[in-house]
């Protein structure tokens, strides 16, 4: 495994020739293992109730925003609107509230999503192994759970209260999800919270540990940079574009087959370059507010988790990918019956 010194050497090196070399290597590996294909997905926010206080998040429990939780009819309406955009991989999100969005609520959302999408992932509060097993049976393919920062002190500073302030419980979440049978797990760090090199080293170590103990899981990584929320900055992200691209490249070189996700929190120009260099999954046509796909008509009514930079539609992204000679992938999984049985015949 790479050392902290080596990571710092890569991040500190701003020599254009070295950066280009690294990018070429990353691009070569990405094309070898993924071809010129990009998977597309969209986030769908079900609820913004949250019982944790994370200083950088628009949904945090102390933020005075309009709280909404979609009822079954509303979630179906939103799902239909996202499906109509052409999206088949959905990431269902909630704030972290064990009371407002309990297991039964999530299971209902997953059952509804099965009518509209072929791939279903969740980014919700961490749960127990048995709960992941139940969600897997209901049709959940993927779990996204970011540690945000692996620096314990910094973690405590920004996660002030609520279940999320329990560092160990969160770090153990990917293991519990894998034990529950979940097929795809996405890890990540929120760039701008902790020391980038140290967080990268810890993330790589976490992923490597997961790969060794749960080799059958398909892993992907995300490197979200802290964003403003309704124009307000909660914290500053000091990771500039050059560093960001180097992080993607370094990750690709270390983990050639691991998926790299890039959300619409990044600007269109950067996303257009990043797909050439190593990113393999893009969100498109995203809205990060509950009810943002049609239920709430105007931005003034909506409470986004973070502000979006790439506002292009799914149609625009598909057209762009084709123009750049990428094959957009909508369907990358086909739901099979996940119920356990002893005799497959």
């Amino acid at each position, binding site marked *: 495994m790479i050392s902290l010194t080596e990571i710092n050497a890569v991040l500190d090196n701003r020599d254009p020739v070295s950066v280009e070399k690294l990018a070429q290597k990353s691009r070569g590996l990405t094309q070898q293992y993924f071809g010129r294909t990009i998977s597309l997905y969209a986030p769908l926010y079900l609820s913004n109730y949250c019982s944790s206080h994370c200083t950088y998040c628009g949904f945090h429990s102390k933020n005075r925003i309009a709280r909404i939780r979609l009822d079954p009819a509303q979630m179906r309406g939103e799902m239909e609107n996202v499906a109509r955009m052409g999206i088949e991989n959905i990431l269902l999100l909630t704030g972290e509230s064990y009371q407002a969005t309990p297991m039964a609520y999530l299971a209902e959302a997953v059952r509804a999503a099965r009518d509209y999408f072929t791939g279903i992932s969740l980014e919700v509060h961490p749960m127990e192994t048995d709960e992941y097993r139940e969600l897997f049976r209901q049709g959940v393919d993927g779990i996204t759970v970011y540690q945000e920062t692996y620096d314990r002190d910094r973690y405590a500073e920004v996660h002030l209260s609520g279940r999320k302030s329990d560092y160990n419980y969160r770090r153990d979440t990917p293991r519990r999800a894998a034990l529950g049978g979940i097929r795809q797990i996405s890890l990540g760090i929120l760039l701008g919270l902790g020391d980038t090199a140290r967080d990268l080293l810890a993330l790589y170590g976490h992923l490597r540990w997961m790969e060794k103990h749960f*080799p059958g899981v398909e*892993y992907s990584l995300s490197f979200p940079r802290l964003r403003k929320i309704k124009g307000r900055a909660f914290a500053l992200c000091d990771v500039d574009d050059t560093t960001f691209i180097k992080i993607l490249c370094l990750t690709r070189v270390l983990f050639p087959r691991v998926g790299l996700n890039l959300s619409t929190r990044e600007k269109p120009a950067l996303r257009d370059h990043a797909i050439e260099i190593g990113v393999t999954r893009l969100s498109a046509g995203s809205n990060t507010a509950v009810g943002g796909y049609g239920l709430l008509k105007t931005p003034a009514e909506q409470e986004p988790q973070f502000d979006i930079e790439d506002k292009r539609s799914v149609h625009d992204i598909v057209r762009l990918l084709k123009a750049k*000679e990428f094959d957009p992938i*909508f369907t990358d999984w086909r739901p099979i019956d996940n119920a356990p049985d002893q005799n*497959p*015949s």
Partner: protein
Amino acid sequence: MLGTGKFRNKTELTASIKASGTEIVTVALRRIDIERHEDNILEYIPEGITLLTNTSGARNAREAVRIARLARESGCGNWVKIEVINDSKYLLPDNAETVKATEILAAEGFIVLPYISPDLYTARALVEAGAAAVMPLGSLIGSNQGLKSKEFIRILVDEIDGVPVIVDAGIGAPSQAAEAMEMGVDAVLANTAVATAGDPAGIALAFSLAIRAGRLAYLSRLPAGHSQAAASSPLTGFLFEP
């Protein structure tokens, strides 16, 4: 045989299938957009080509069986390439689970082509289970490393009768396909080397020519490697001296 993943657009896929002269292409069920017609990969496969659905994404026999059944129910036919992979880092096939899935699916009337690490006992068990071929890997999927497992594949070529031995995975260049064919394998499956080439159709044609050349060399009984025999017999000549 040609895999259909990783192409930058589906027009090049069609052109590559045609140029390769293949009769069988493999498609991952997970990538077939059954509900959608626009850009459905099946519409880019020329008529007359046999569709071999693969179970990519299956982590055990149970999932492979369910994917194969779903493929058949979806109208994708009954040819199935079993891929049971429970390691996302190396993508090595799980031979034991593959045998289990083959037993079940062959009994259900599927034409089963299992992808395996080259292992004689596994290959024998697969033939016993009703597999229509055995597909040992040349090297890791997508690695373009060629026939790293050559000597183990040679054992399968020598010992497995009655079903074809098809080298699947790792073939990174036409010369490697020719090398496999020269040693007597019955077919090769290529994907990454074609799909990620500058001109996929050109490479597909090159594969076709290399495979024909390799096959012809095999059928023409390619002389064995450099013989050490010389005109004189320094060790045993004394026996025959007058």
